[in-house]
């Protein structure tokens, strides 16, 4: 159990997907201007990561490894993620329209979000067990949401800040990410 917790914390804070592994940067710089949309996006990504990690673990363990076709993982995983996102989208439309309004547009973006494919590939490369894969997926997702939320708060203030003209927009967001990354590297000694 302690190992699972340390894996979870490690994925969330130390090997943070955005700041250290640079996965899921498009939503980081694109969506993260409003706190509410950052949290919705983060929640949607975490959920898909969890489902996708479980599904790809089962496929890897019971199909890819027995048939010795692990090299097909990229093709299989991306198809699994794309179909899962479709199924989740259909399911949400049928069950709750309010939920669809909140998450719908983000779901479409998730298929090509490197964070989701990233976590499934990482689980496979590290040959994590099912509980480990799930802990890693949840940790990565929550770390992703956390940084997305922090960044959106900072960017709301940056919009009105008086930065040099050439630095406005993306460049200053990158510099902010640098400082955030430095701050997070302080977690490195935790485990």
């Amino acid at each position, binding site marked *: 159990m302690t190992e699972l917790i340390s894996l979870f914390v490690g994925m969330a804070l130390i*090997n943070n997907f955005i700041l250290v592994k640079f996965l899921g940067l498009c939503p980081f710089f694109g969506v993260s201007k409003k706190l509410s949309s950052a949290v919705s996006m983060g929640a949607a990504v975490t959920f898909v990561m969890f489902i996708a990690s479980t599904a790809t673990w089962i496929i890897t363990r019971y199909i890819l490894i027995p048939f010795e*076709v692990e*090299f097909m993982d990229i*093709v299989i995983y991306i198809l699994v993620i794309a179909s899962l996102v479709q199924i989740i989208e259909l399911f949400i439309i049928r069950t709750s329209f309010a939920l669809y309004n909140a998450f719908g547009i983000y779901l479409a973006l998730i298929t090509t979000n490197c964070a989701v494919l990233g976590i499934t590939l990482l689980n496979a490369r*590290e040959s994590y067990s099912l509980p480990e894969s799930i802990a890693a997926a949840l940790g990565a997702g929550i770390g992703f949401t956390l940084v997305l939320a922090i960044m959106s708060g900072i960017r709301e203030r940056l919009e009105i800040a008086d930065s040099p003209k050439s630095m406005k927009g993306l460049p200053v967001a990158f510099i902010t990410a640098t400082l955030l990354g430095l701050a997070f590297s302080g977690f490195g000694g935790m485990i």
Partner: protein
Amino acid sequence: MPSLLRKIYPILFVTLIVFISVTLLIFTESFTSAELQARLQQQVEEELESMFPELDDSVDNEDSEVYTLLAGGETIGYAFLAVGTGYSGDIAILVGLEDSETVKGIIILSQQETPGIGDRITGDGFTGQFTGLNIDAVNFKQDGGQIDGLAMATISSEAVIDAVRDTAMEKVKLIEGVE
């Protein structure tokens, strides 16, 4: 009839694309995996020859996964792979033993540690410290061993040390069991 065809055409098309893709990949894989095996084998042999210059033959004991190294029919040492869990992924280490208790040398075959920090484990300054040590002394100095860890890279250093010591102890039992 054409309307039925129009309905199933998308499905047929994607199935065909996937089929072509799978065929192409299986073909490529069978080709590259042979190359990969040969390359790994060659790398291990070259590293072993640099560690044991007088080496002329080796016996692969498949049960224990230990190579018995021979020169002119005499056993001059043993070699095996040790795998440690580093800061970011597995570290594969080739370990050479002079006899059943002394380390001849170690070579890091593959690692993915942080560049500039953890990846210093591949340097001679670190791996050289293992040469000539008794297996029991493969540990940090503060833990009663004879190895200086790398500053700022404790996890990476510890992963190598633990993997070498633990695997060596396990393999030594197997080696002694054979003789």
